[in-house]
């Protein structure tokens, strides 16, 4: 009997030991593991949001994805802004370079004219004598094709239009995000209304960031880019000059010099042949020789220029089309790189602000407020 009592006592104590151990283990898990509490308190309270001084309340099931929604808006807004900027830049540069291409025939007319020929010759002589430093072909090309400083103004105007587009995009993104929030939240809730949420999120900073006025200073960066656009525009003629010089060095110098030398020999031959006809003119023979020789020189020059134009005009225009295409590609890459950097910074800023805005919310929802 006594043994039975003892056995019952031992069994009871074993059960108690088991209970204590299990209790300690369960409590340890409850202290260390946050997940059971998350599930328990996930739907217990609504979340308040404050935008521009107005307070709204979101049901817990909708508020759970607030951060995800904001992040998705940020991703979509940045991607769309980037695409829109690329499309506008391409379209604007297409228009600009189409107009520049249309000027190539006028440049070719000048290049193969007597005026152009003698302008080039005289400036080349001056350069040889050290009296002129500029390349006459380059200057004329810049004037006739790129319109001098006009390209800088054109590029600045394009930048201004892209800035306007991106500003509008940022505003639209902010509006779309706020509209979605307001649709979820319904009517503003007076502060005194019962059922106050345990967590309140202030969204003004995030709205500012979405609108481009936040800490990433997206719109300021865009303005700086536009200021830089002036630099790009000012660099346009420089880029064109470089293209011209390199092209002249690569293709034009040899053939044009040979052509010039050939034309010079032919003109000298024509002038000499004309002057020989004046031998019978007696004392007026020198004057006759000068007049007839000069006329023969010019006539020969014109004939040779015409032949040169007939042979090389299309090649000259095609060469310039190629150089303009290179210039366009460089300009497009430079502009898109600038916008890409600004949009990337904006995108990062929006994500940072999303994290900064909603992380406290997570901690509030998952556990007692951060201390």
């Amino acid at each position, binding site marked *: 009997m*006594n043994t039975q009592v003892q056995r019952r006592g031992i069994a*009871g*104590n074993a059960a*108690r030991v088991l*209970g204590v151990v299990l209790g*300690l283990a369960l409590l340890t898990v409850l202290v260390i593991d946050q997940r059971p*509490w998350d599930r328990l*308190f996930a739907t217990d309270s609504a979340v308040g949001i404050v935008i521009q001084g107005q307070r709204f309340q979101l049901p817990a099931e909708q508020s759970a994805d607030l951060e995800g929604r904001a992040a998705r808006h940020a991703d979509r807004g940045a991607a769309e802004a980037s695409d829109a900027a690329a499309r506008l830049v391409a379209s604007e540069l297409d228009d600009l370079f189409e107009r520049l291409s249309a000027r190539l025939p006028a440049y070719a007319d000048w290049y193969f004219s007597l005026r152009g020929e003698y302008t080039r010759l005289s400036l080349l002589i001056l350069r040889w004598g050290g009296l002129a430093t500029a390349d006459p072909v380059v200057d004329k090309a810049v004037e006739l094709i790129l319109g001098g400083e006009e390209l800088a103004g054109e590029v600045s105007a394009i930048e201004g239009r892209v800035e306007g587009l991106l500003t509008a995009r940022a505003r639209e993104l902010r509006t779309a995000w706020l509209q979605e929030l307001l649709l979820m939240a319904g009517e503003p809730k007076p502060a005194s209304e019962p059922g*106050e949420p345990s967590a309140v999120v202030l969204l003004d900073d995030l709205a500012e960031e979405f609108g481009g006025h936040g800490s990433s200073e997206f719109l300021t960066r865009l303005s700086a880019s536009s200021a830089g656009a002036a630099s790009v525009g000012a660099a346009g003629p420089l880029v064109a000059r470089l293209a011209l010089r390199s092209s002249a060095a690569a293709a034009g110098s040899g053939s044009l010099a040979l052509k010039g030398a050939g034309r010079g020999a032919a003109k000298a031959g024509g002038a000499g042949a004309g002057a020989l006809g004046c031998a019978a003119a007696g004392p007026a023979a020198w004057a006759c020789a000068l007049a007839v020789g000069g006329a023969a020189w010019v006539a020969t020059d014109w004939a040779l220029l015409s032949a040169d134009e007939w042979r090389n005009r299309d090649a000259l225009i095609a060469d310039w089309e190629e150089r303009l295409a290179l210039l366009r590609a460089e300009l497009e890459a430079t502009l898109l790189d600038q916008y890409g950097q600004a949009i990337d910074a904006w995108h990062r800023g929006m994500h940072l602000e999303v994290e900064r805005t909603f992380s406290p919310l997570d901690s509030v929802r998952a556990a007692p407020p951060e*201390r």
Partner: protein
Amino acid sequence: MATASGARQTRLALNDMLWLLAVPVFLIVLSRIAVQLTDTAVVVLVLGLALFMTAGIWLRLVLRRRIFLAGALRVESPWYRRLRGGPLMALMALGGAVPLAAILVVAVARVDAPHLLLGMVLNVPVLVLLREFWSRRLASHAVPRFRAMLALRLALALNLGLLFLALATAALFRTYPELAGLTLTEAMLSEAGRQEAASGLLQALMQLAAAKDAMAWWLGQQVLPGLIEPGLQIVGWMVLVATDVLVVWSYLMICASVLTLLHWREWHPGGHRQ
């Protein structure tokens, strides 16, 4: 016979552990919901905890008074009855229990790392084992009817030191906010500003506690490194960052109240006058 007595002692000890598990359960739940409580709920909670503590403290005070009276006064003296402890003693106990309860509620509401609650959970068997240890050690020294109370008293004192040391050691391995570049005032205001609770009263108390913590961290980061030897810095950090002794003491007071209320009939000398 000795085996039966041992089994009975073990059963009582295990029962005590099971009862004491209710204390960390309550505190763990409180840590999750405290910031959502209203002002009224916070006041009721603090008063309820204080009354529970008071019951245990008062009963133990009465017992201590009886020990004193048994040794100092004759049983037939009217002062024996007058001084045995009544409402005035309970009121004084309540006066001490209210701040202790408030400190415990605030500490639990501000829990942001598991070490405090984990320490409280694991302390349950430690307290009971310490009491059993002292009870056995006092068997041949203490008067039987006061032995349990004396054992509990010694166990509480030793447990306070052990739990404080354990929590202070755990606190050494935690990370704290970087307060470099801030003045002491800025650091305190910054920490206080991060406190959130539905109850304004609880929030104010949490802000006070947070400011106190910020002051400790600031001193630990800005002052200690330049003033004392590296070995002593660890001691200084332990003092600065360890969970407040009062928090540990108030937790132990609740545990002691549970044990006192459970065993009051066995411990109370009743009307027995020798």
